[in-house]
């Protein structure tokens, strides 16, 4: 499970090619809104809860304000969820009532998803790190979020099992003035270094946000792999 993300494109690998496993069922890069994508590493089920929450938040924002949500605000909305675990010590329902009545139920649905109903708490943190990449009025941006709920803005980042090596390779190769082609091949070549098996269109996912989210089809991925 290696994930490498550079401003505007990201690559992730699928784990251990077990012959009986269907590779296309492993989805580690997903769309949050048409201008924001997300790559995940860790407990994928937890990541799906977070992604669902982000999707709801971004659509609520579009409904309320008629505009796309900025990438930083989306990341912040996810980080707001991270520390809400423990036994029944959630924020009081009085707070959520104000939000309920005035923000058109924007928080209620995801809170219920997380089991945060009166008296019932989530028992553990989300065991997942996310890379949130998107394009808004401030240009393209990339944010890294960890289970503590802290987020950093990055130009390039790697997460997952090979991330230490990948991160240091990224440091060397990243620059703010890379072309789109380079941001495609650099993460993929770093993935190649840290992956045990050979890189093929079936065991990596590549996606870009420029300015809309797009997950590469196998043939497009093939084209990038050929350039390595």
């Amino acid at each position, binding site marked *: 499970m290696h994930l490498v993300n550079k401003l505007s494109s990201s690559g992730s690998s699928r784990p251990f090619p077990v012959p009986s496993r269907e590779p296309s069922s492993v989805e580690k890069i997903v769309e949050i809104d048409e201008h924001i994508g997300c790559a995940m590493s860790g407990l994928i089920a937890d990541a799906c809860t977070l992604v669902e929450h982000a999707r709801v938040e971004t659509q609520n924002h579009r*409904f*309320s*304000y*008629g*505009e796309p949500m*900025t990438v*930083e*605000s989306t990341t*912040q909305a996810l980080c707001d969820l991270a520390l809400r675990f423990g036994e029944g010590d959630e924020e009081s329902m009085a707070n959520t009532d104000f939000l309920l009545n*005035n923000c*058109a139920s924007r928080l209620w649905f995801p809170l219920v998803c997380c089991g945060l109903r009166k008296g019932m708490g989530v028992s553990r943190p989300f065991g997942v790190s996310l890379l949130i990449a998107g394009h808004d*009025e401030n240009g393209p941006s990339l944010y890294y979020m960890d289970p503590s709920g802290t987020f950093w803005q990055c130009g390039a980042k790697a997460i997952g099992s090979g991330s230490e090596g990948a991160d240091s390779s990224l440091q060397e190769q990243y620059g703010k003035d890379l072309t789109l082609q380079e941001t495609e091949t650099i993460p993929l070549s770093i993935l190649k270094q840290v992956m045990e098996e050979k890189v093929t269109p079936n065991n990596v996912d590549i996606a870009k946000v420029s300015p809309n989210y797009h997950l590469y089809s196998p043939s497009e991925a093939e084209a990038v792999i050929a350039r390595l």
Partner: protein
Amino acid sequence: MTKQQANWSPYDFNGGTCVAVAGADYCVIAADTRMSTGYNILTRDYSKICKLADKSFLASSGFQADVRALQKHLEARHLIYQHQHNKQMSCPAMAQLLSNTLYYKRFFPYYAFNVLGGLDNEGKGCVFTYDAVGSYEKVGYSSQGSGAKLIMPFLDNQLKAPSPLLLPARDAVTPLSEPEAIDLVKTAFASATERDIYTVSVNGDKLEIVVLNSEGMRREYMDLRKD
């Protein structure tokens, strides 16, 4: 047994008229300053124009208690937005928020007839006009309130763009310059004053005009007919 009828109404009508006109790089928002109830004047000096954001001004006529509550609600929401997103709300975003806020009370409406005026993210003037339950439209000019039926036909005559059914879609902002637009608004109110008792300005009643452009905001007052 006949059905019991209410012997009071939660609403009152405080009169007044609001107008807004959008230009290429400015927006003019105007409203009279009279507040009345029935045939009585409550005050001659009441502002119906409220600043919601740096580039969004709301002018509302109708029931001023509901108008004030609506203004407070929107101001609070704007503050929350600034805290969460680290920026001011754009006028189109405020327009959507106002629409949602009004519709939220679809079954006990805010008795407020609104015109939202401001500059969009590119600095172009924009005007949004509403009904009491949040149906809204981006337009080049609009008026609401007791004098609207007198002012709107005049504005249509002076400012109406070619039919919106023509393609390509033409923007409705007026090509008039800022001083010309202000003059037009003053003329419109002077006419409405002649015939609408709720929009008259007697000794002291005024017309309040807010002009928003790239340099910022300024507020002018003009005396209307004194009777």
